Structures are given as C-alpha cells and as structure tokens.
C-alpha cells in the first residue's frame, strides 16, 4: 500500500511537470514543435531514413531564414520500427505528451493509414510524404493531404496517355498486366489497364500474384506465350520488378512498351540486378528528379549535397515537399490554427520541389507523376515536356541484351 502511494505521488509530480512543459511551449516561447514518426528501423528503414533527412534539411533551412511565423522550428521525430501499432502510439504521444503544434506524416500507405486516423481524430492537419493507396482517401478524412502529384491509380497516367496516343501503325493492340497483391502496386497496374482497355487495347494476360512471390518463371512463360505489345507491372519495392525482368530475359521475350511501377526507380540497385544494358527503354513513374527546374529545388539540392555528399533519394525529396506544403499553409494563415490551415490547403495550391500541388476534398493530389525512362544506363524524365531531361524517347523498347 505504501509503495502504491509513492507511485501515485510520482505520477502527480510527473503530470505536473508534463503540464508545465506543455504550457511553456504554448506561451510563445519562440519555438514551433513539429512531430512525426518515421520507420527508421525495420522493413521501411531505407525510405524512413531518407525522409528524416528531408525533414531535417527543411528544418535547418527554415530556421536559417528566420523560422516559421517568427518561431524556431523544432522537429520531434520518433521511430515507429515500421510497425502499425507503434506508429499509432507514437502519434498519440506526439499529440498528448510532446504537445507538438503541427504534424507531418510517415512513410508507406501501410503506416500512414493508421497514423492519419490518429491525426484526424485529434483534428490536426496531416500532410504525408507518401501513402498513395486509394484506401487513404476513401475514409472521408478532411485533415489529410498527400504531398505527391497523384494517387496510385493515376501513377502511370502519362504512360497510358502516351501509349494510347501513338500513331496508328505503332499503337499497341494487346497488353499484359502483372499485378502485385499490394495496396499501392495493385492500383497502379489497374489504372493502366483501365485506360488502355478504354482505348481499345486488348487484355491478353492479367493476373494478381501474392507479394511474397520470387519465382516469376511461370508468369513470364505464360506472358511470353501471349506475345503482348505492352507489359505493365504494378508492385512495390525492388525485387518483384527485377525478378520479372530476369524471368522475361530467360524466356527471351521483350515487349514493345514496358512499364514497371517501382523497381526501376531504385537507380543502381535496379541496373546492377538486371544488367545495365537490359534497362534500356523501361518506363516508370517518379515524383522527383534531381535536375528538375522546380522552385526551391536548387537550394534543396545544394543543402542536401553539402550535408550528405550525394544526390537526394526520391523519398528525401518527398518528405521535404511535405514540409514545404505545411510551411506554405502556416505562413499564409499566419498562426497555428488547424482548421484554418486545412481550409487554406483545400482552397489553394503550393509550389514545391515536386512542382505545383493542389488537393481535392479527400486530400488526394490533382497533378500527374513524371514519366521516366532508362536511356543509355541513365534515368531520364521523358514527359511532361516542361520537366523532361531527355528530348528523345526510346520506342519500341529494344530486345534484351544478355
């Protein structure tokens, strides 16, 4: 009993301390706390670490320029270990205990799904740097904003539009769809399929495979037997795309146009895994390119290169853009008022290093991804014209070279 009393007393003291700390933050002490939880360890540790770099570079730049609405920005970043339960705990703790003024999102649809629900319940604006699954935007949330150009079903829009508008003698007649059972990858391939079918391209193969598939020999063999003009694969991560490519090389079949959702964006890891010559002509969609002439990109690049001595990965740029979105809204509103920030974002567009972004009523972005293609061992943006880094387009895709 005595021990319990001590515990109780300790709790009271602790509560008072937390309360005092919270009051201190609110009373205009000159700092603005922004909280986020990122997958710094576990399955998503690679994008999670990159996102942390993006957030921190933004914080440094904002503070160097005098802060956000005249307050120093202090990022509070927790590690959710790529775990859906921990990410919920983390965002609750950020709001209840750390008393952060603003939130930024985490990485992957998997983690953003539960995390955004915590923000929504607490009526806090939630700008996420990743999480394009359609499930995100079908829940009637109003405080959620996705800071990339488009959701998963529209990731390949530029590719689909380009393919279906090819001159009659080049226009594909048949297409095969290899679709991962994944909340992001699945909708990407379904999006292409819908557009191509509407344009009269016949579907000759369309199969969903489980995400743990590594052996694509049987799939490649079946696809090759149908000799489709186009192959579109929707998947998340690197290995699915590489394993399909390798299986297609083994069977000796190369389509005229080939789109893959994620793998080709893994730079060296992709080209090393299938052989750099075999990358020629493969299409994919990206949100960011280092050579993009978007507002602020030069500053971001310089700061990133100075700090990490290498080019920023896409995930770092996406996180930086998410912070830019939040910054623009807070500056426009002039105060930390979650409802006003939300309304402003619904009514306005923001210039980011990914280009201009605006949102519909569900928080889904209304722009289009960049269409990229591997050319001569380099990753080039081919569409839209204003963002293109290469004026030529490899079409049709050359045969595999072993």
């Amino acid at each position, binding site marked *: 009993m005595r021990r319990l009393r001590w515990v109780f007393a300790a709790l009271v003291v602790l509560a008072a301390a937390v309360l005092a700390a919270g009051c201190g933050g609110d009373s205009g002490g000159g700092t603005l706390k922004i909280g986020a939880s990122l997958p710094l360890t576990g399955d998503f540790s690679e994008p999670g670490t990159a996102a942390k770099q993006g957030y921190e570079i933004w914080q440094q730049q904002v503070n160097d320029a005098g802060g956000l609405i005249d307050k120093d920005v202090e990022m509070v970043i927790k590690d959710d270990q790529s775990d859906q339960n921990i990410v919920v705990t983390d965002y609750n703790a950020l709001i209840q205990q750390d008393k952060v003024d603003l939130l930024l999102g985490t990485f992957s649809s998997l983690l953003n799904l539960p995390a955004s629900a915590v923000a929504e319940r607490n009526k806090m604006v939630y700008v996420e740097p990743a999480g394009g699954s359609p499930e995100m935007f079908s829940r009637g949330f109003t405080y959620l904003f996705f800071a990339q150009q488009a959701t998963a079903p529209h990731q390949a829009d530029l590719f689909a539009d380009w393919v279906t508008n090819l001159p009659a003698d080049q226009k594909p007649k048949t297409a095969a769809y290899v679709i991962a059972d994944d909340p992001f990858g699945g909708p990407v391939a379904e999006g292409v399929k819908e557009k191509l079918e509407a344009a009269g391209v016949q579907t000759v193969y369309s199969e969903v495979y489980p995400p743990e598939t590594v052996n694509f020999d*049987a799939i490649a063999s079946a696809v090759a037997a149908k000799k489709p003009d186009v192959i579109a694969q929707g998947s998340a991560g690197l290995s699915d795309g*590489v394993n399909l490519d390798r299986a297609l090389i083994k069977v*000796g079949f190369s389509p005229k146009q080939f789109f893959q959702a994620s793998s080709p964006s893994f730079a060296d890891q992709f080209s090393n895994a299938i052989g750099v010559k075999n990358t020629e002509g493969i299409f994919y969609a990206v949100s960011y390119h280092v050579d993009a002439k978007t507002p602020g990109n030069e500053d971001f690049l310089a700061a990133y290169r100075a700090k990490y001595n290498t080019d920023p990965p896409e995930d770092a740029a996406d996180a930086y853009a998410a912070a830019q979105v939040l910054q623009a809204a807070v500056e426009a509103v002039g105060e930390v008022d979650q409802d006003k920030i939300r309304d402003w974002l619904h009514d306005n567009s923001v210039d980011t290093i990914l280009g201009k972004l605006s949102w519909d009523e569900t928080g889904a972005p209304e722009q289009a991804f960049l269409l990229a293609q591997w050319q001569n061992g380099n990753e080039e943006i081919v569409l839209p014209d204003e963002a293109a880094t290469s004026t030529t387009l490899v079409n049709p895709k050359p045969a595999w070279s072993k």
Partner: protein
Amino acid sequence: MTQLVQVIILGLLIGGVYALLAAGLTLIFGVMDVINVAQGALLIFAAFVAWTLWHDLGIDPLLGVLITTPLMFGIGWVMYMLTIQFLAGKPASMSVLLTFALALVIEGVMGILWSTTYHAATPGYFADSYRPGDFYLPKTQVYGCVIAVGVLTALYVLLRYTWLGRAIRAVSENATSARLVGVNPKKVAALTFAVGVATTGAGGSIVSVLYPFLPGSHYQWISRLLGVIVLGGMGSLPGAVAGALALGVAETTTATYISPRWATMVPYALIIVVLLARPQGIMGAKLREDAVL
C-alpha cells in the same frame, strides 16, 4: 502441350535448386533432432560471401563454391561448439528458439557488413537459357540442379560408404549404443552440423545469382525449405529431393493453370494432403527410426 512440358521443366529445375538448399537442413534434423531455422540466414550469408568474391575479386559464384563451402563448414563447426551442443537432450522445440535467435543475429551482422540494400551477382549466364527445340532451360537453375546432384551424391556416399557416415547413422539411430562401439556422439554431431551448414556454401552461390537478396531474404527461404523437408519426410535425403521436386512443379503448374495468386499457397495445401495420407512424409525417415510426425 508444349506449354505443359515447359512448365513442368521449369518446376523440376527450380525444384532441383530447392533440393540443394534443403539437403543440409534435413541432414541436421535427421541426425541431431535440431530444426535449424538459421539455415536460411546462413544461406544468405553464403550468398553475400559469393557476391563479394564475384564483385570484388571477379571469382565466378559457381567457382566460389570451392571457397564458400569450407568457410561455411568452419562457421557451422564454431556455431555448434558455441551454441548448438548445449541442446543435447533438449526437445526439438528448444532448437527452434535457439536457431531463430541465431538467425536474427546473423541477419544483423549481414546488415552491418553489407548494408540492407539489395545485392545481385550477374555473371554472364545469370539470365541466359539453353534452348533445345521449342523449350528453354534457364542456365542458373540448370547449374543449380547439377550442383544439387553433386552435393546430394556426395552426402549419400559420405553417409553410406565412409566410417564417418556409418558413425552418423549409428548416432542417429541409437546414440548410447554408438558410444559403446567407440563412436564419440558429440564429435559426430559437430561434424554433421558443420557438413549440413557447409551445403549452404553451394546453395548460397546459386541464390546469389538466382534472385536479388538482402539480409531479410532468409525468411522467404527458410519457410519454403521447411515445407520441402516436411513434405519429403523430415530427415530423409531422398525425401528432400522428392519434396523439392514436388513443390517446384506444384508452384509452376499452379501459377500457369490456376493463378499466380494461388502459387505460393498450393504447395502448403499439398503438404497438408500428403501429411494426412502419409504422416511421415513421402519418403518417411530413412536416417531415423523414430521419426513420426
């Protein structure tokens, strides 16, 4: 018809690779009652070594087998001396706990040594195929099968015709009696474990060429390999081969004729069916007289 034959060829080839990878696992279980969950992690470790030899020294992964096999033998020996030997007399479930912990440690070490990004060895033949007539045979899988035949034959000869082999079989059947005729069960167990781990040297070389891998890849392999040896009959070498081939063909035919969606599930359904009909697996247990599942 052509397609069916092709699909069965692909299934048998990948099955041959599975047999190579499962051989050490079934040997270790058959003799020692140890379910070595770390076998997958050791396989990926060997793949990283093969990749490094290929990437930094230009040694072909298949030639690298000559280096990785003794290396993995040594690692197996050390692992036995430091940890596995204390499992003697404990139930097999304890071995799962211990070796799972070892698998996590090995995964962490690989992350430190080689980072958590994907690696892939791409020697000239990595995505090449032999093309007899209308068919194609991926070279990597063919080489994997050839090595599998070599490794399995060597294991068979070792068990059948050498003093060590007779000692291993004696210990697996009755450790107490084996001791009476002058066999040192601890030494035999250490050698068995090391030989079982040494097979990952060859397996890892094939894995490094077959698919891109990272430290976490061991989960996908160990689940499949456990499936192979349960299907074939735990502890039986011919059983591991039969189980591996059955699993490979089941995978490819399902992916082609039903749907890829079912391809990773059907092999496990097959295991349930086989175990209902033959609880000891396809081949029972040749190395153990008391293996009943």
